[in-house]
């Protein structure tokens, strides 16, 4: 291990490559600050990549939390404009089942309207026409402007814009120490996981955007934040059952949202407290799977007959109010802590709480605070300036890349928005597929490898959906590993190790729901990799 000192000072260092960190990097860099973002793994590996991908209208919170509801609907409308390539405007239905209290509906609608959320009560028959997969026994339906948002794309796009404005981004750099001078944080020490080097970086302000891991980062500064890890488990189904978001019209509870997201749909979530020590190792339990299915089938009976692809769980970074040491009074709202005023520690800011929906607002508040500390008065532009990928008409882009086969063209524009115009010069080889389920071409994978900070197969999956389809890596993983090796991104030995860890990561998500066709397919996958490709059992975990 070598000690590598760098003296180049930044205005702000952001710790954490989730949506909030990426959004803060974007906002800060757009306001002219010199920005460094560090992330210990890949971008969107934490709660950002482990949620519903629901573009909340805010309706879910309207009755219980007006403030969150108002924030949601405002950010919802902003994201539709600035991140159109990450958003699908599906709308949402709040369904009342026979077992639910229909009286709740009017209370719900009133609360929505009060928060500025359009809420139309519609005839259950019309609701079923709009969304035939919904439970036919519903006794009430309200239509709201919910949608779907892809958190991987959203984060990647924020990173891209931040870099376009001069930000530096270091993934696989884990903060090991906060450099302190008297009562001020002046920089960070990081371990580069790829080279195993330790480096130091200095800045005027350090932003802790580590999500649930922000707890530990704050500890490095000797600051205590009372975080309450809340696990949320979800199931991914093999294809889209619904095209409109389905919610239960009742107080928020377990497994009451079914979201169509890209080629699949997701039911979630559960909610359970977990010890902090377990946040790095989330497994979905059989009880959670049963609960998700039991409740999910009530929203859409078809789920009982739909293949489940995976189960996964994320950890919400909930924060106990500072004035409540018992931790019972939990806020789901945005928590921005200026440690100068809170703890007498200058140059250190923590942003946490909140949700994916409000990542931009969280970033704006954080950047406002950072700017105040640095005496910068440039206004925020992130609510009006579109993200890369969402700037141009995708129909025009489609015409530009007409040589790309149709399904691939649609899929790639879906994923990359106007960035897909990079594929206009594709050769026939570039147009050959790596991932057949999700229509990811060699050209798209090359683009991701060259321009989107991809270090391994799992990173590639987050940028392109390689391995996210029904086959879960069966056909694509070895092709992608081969491509990475050919492009000198990995030596043969590393490519093989990477392939093994990718397949094991895929299996982790399948194990809790490994029955029926999913089990059959995973057995076949194991046979291909062990029998044909010669990956040995000893290289498995």
């Amino acid at each position, binding site marked *: 291990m070598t000690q590598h000192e760098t003296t180049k000072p930044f205005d702000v260092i952001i710790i954490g490559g989730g949506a909030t960190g990426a959004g803060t990097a974007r906002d800060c860099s757009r306001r002219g600050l010199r920005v460094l973002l560090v992330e210990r793994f890949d971008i969107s590996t934490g709660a950002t990549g482990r949620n519903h991908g629901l573009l909340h209208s805010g309706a879910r919170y309207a009755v219980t939390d007006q403030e969150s509801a108002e924030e949601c609907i405002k950010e919802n409308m902003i994201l539709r404009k600035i991140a159109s390539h990450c958003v699908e405007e599906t709308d949402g239905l709040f369904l009342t089942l026979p077992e639910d209290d229909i009286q709740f509906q009017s209370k719900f609608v009133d609360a929505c309207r009060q928060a500025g959320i359009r809420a139309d009560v519609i005839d259950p028959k019309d609701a079923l026409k709009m969304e035939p997969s919904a439970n036919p026994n519903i006794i009430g339906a309200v239509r709201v402007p919910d949608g779907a948002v892809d958190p991987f794309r959203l984060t990647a796009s924020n990173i891209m814009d931040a870099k376009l404005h001069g930000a530096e981004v270091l993934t696989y750099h884990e903060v090991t120490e906060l450099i302190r001078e008297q009562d001020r944080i002046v920089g960070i020490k990081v371990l580069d996981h790829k080279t195993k080097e330790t480096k130091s970086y200095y800045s005027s302000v350090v932003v802790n955007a580590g999500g649930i891991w922000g707890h530990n980062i704050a500890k490095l500064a000797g600051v205590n934040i009372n975080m309450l890890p809340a696990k949320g488990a979800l199931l991914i189904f*093999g*294809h*889209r059952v619904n095209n409109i978001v389905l919610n239960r019209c009742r107080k928020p509870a377990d497994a009451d949202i079914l979201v*169509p997201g*890209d*080629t699949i749909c997701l039911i979630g979530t559960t909610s359970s407290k977990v010890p902090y020590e377990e946040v790095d190792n989330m497994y979905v339990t059989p009880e959670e*799977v*049963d609960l998700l*299915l*039991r409740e999910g*089938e009530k929203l859409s009976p078809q789920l*009982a*007959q*739909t*293949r*489940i692809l995976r189960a996964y769980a994320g950890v919400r970074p909930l924060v106990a109010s500072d004035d409540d040491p018992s931790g019972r009074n939990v806020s789901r709202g945005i928590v921005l802590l200026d440690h100068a005023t809170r703890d007498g520690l200058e140059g250190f800011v923590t942003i946490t709480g909140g949700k994916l929906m409000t990542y931009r607002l969280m970033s704006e508040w954080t950047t406002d605070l950072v700017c105040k500390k640095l005496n910068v008065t440039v206004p925020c532009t992130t609510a009006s300036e579109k993200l890369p990928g969402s700037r141009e008409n995708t129909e025009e882009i489609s015409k530009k890349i007409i040589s790309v*086969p*149709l*399904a691939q063209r*649609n*899929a790639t524009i879906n994923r990359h928005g106007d960035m897909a115009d990079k594929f206009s010069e594709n050769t026939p080889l570039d147009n050959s597929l790596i991932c*057949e*389920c999700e*229509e990811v071409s060699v050209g798209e994978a090359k683009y991701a490898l060259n321009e989107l900070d991809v270090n391994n197969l799992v990173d590639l999956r987050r940028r392109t959906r390689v391995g996210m*389809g*029904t*086959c879960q890596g*069966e*056909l694509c993983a070895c092709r992608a590993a081969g491509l990475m090796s050919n492009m000198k991104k990995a030596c043969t030995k590393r490519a093989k190790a990477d392939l093994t860890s990718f397949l094991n990561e895929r299996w982790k998500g399948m194990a809790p*729901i490994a*029955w*029926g*066709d999913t089990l*059959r*397919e995973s057995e*076949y996958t194991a046979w291909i990799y062990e029998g044909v490709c010669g990956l040995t059992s000893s290289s498995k975990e």
Partner: protein
Amino acid sequence: MNLQQHNISDNNFEQCIKCTVCTVYCPVAAVNPDYPGPKQAGPDGERLRLKKFNFYDESLKYCINCKRCEVACPSNVRIGDIIQAARIKYSEKKPTLRDFILANTDLVGTLSTPFAPIVNTTLGLKPVKAILDGVMKIDHRRTFPKYSFGTFEGWYKKQAAKQAAYPKQVSYFHGCYANYNNPQLGKDLVKVMNALGFGVQLLEKEKCCGVALISNGFINQAKKQAKTNIASIRKSVLEKKIPVIATSSTCTFTIRDEYPHLLDVKNDDVRDQIELATRYIYRLFSQQSAKLNFKKGEKKIKVAYHTPCHMEKLGWSYYSIELLKLIPNIELTVLDSQCCGIAGTYGFKKENYKTSQDIGASLFKQIESCDFDVVVTDCETCKWQIEMSTSKRCEHPISILANALE
């Protein structure tokens, strides 16, 4: 224990485990790079189309609906059905006048048979073929099947009373081919059944099975005809207790499988009673002491049996082959089971001619490589393709059987 243990999914495509053996067995994917192959066009594509309709790719029209993908599939995915259903649901291409003429075998047959000598001569003329090619996009290299001067139904009317006198009866779904092009096949069937002690009836009302209507996009008309046929079949099977047999493998397959799968016309109450003539006869031989008197001292003939795709899908070529083996003077060779390439009306279309002939090439080579006297097959369009593309004559097994009888 899990909650999904009784999974009886309508989402048949989800049974696919991506083994890709369907694409390996697809005759089109092997010769036409524009066709994405059954895996991508079927289960993979279906998942994407469920996300958004614009994932429908018009290249699905290259599927010849041979169902060899379904035969190959170890996971029971109805790949061919998924592709055809997607075409029905999503295709925005309107059928052309050519498609109308090719699809309406009933109508065109009715119009042509009274003038068969003129129609046959005219369709064989080079300038006519050039016009058909240029204007209608029906390939000029294609030989048209000859129309018969007078239909099978016309001939049968004079036989009806005699047939009714037999103690045992079968209903015969003759199909357009036996009716308009080759009444002799129908007559042969009557001869064979009579020799077995069965009288042959026709259905109260028979329409074209609709296979060409389905493949050319005339779904409503196909549904209407399917309903008429099933109503007549029900009358025969359920009221008169008379089973239905057919000589065309494609008609049989369409009525049994495509009606419920693609046209949503239910047939489960009669499906088991609709079968191929060769299977029915074979079963008579195996279950009862049926006897046929064959001519004696006939010269040996070398016969090659070609398995049509829909026979492969039905799994019934065994019966035709075993029946042929009963004929004393036949030396039988079973050809490799592979698509001949015509696929009904598909091969008649100018844009498909090359694909069609490329698919059939290895079959034609195998046929020419041996000194066969005749090729035998249960499918009429395979017959046209083999006769046009090789030097051999091609006959139906029932005709071969009828010929061998005393």
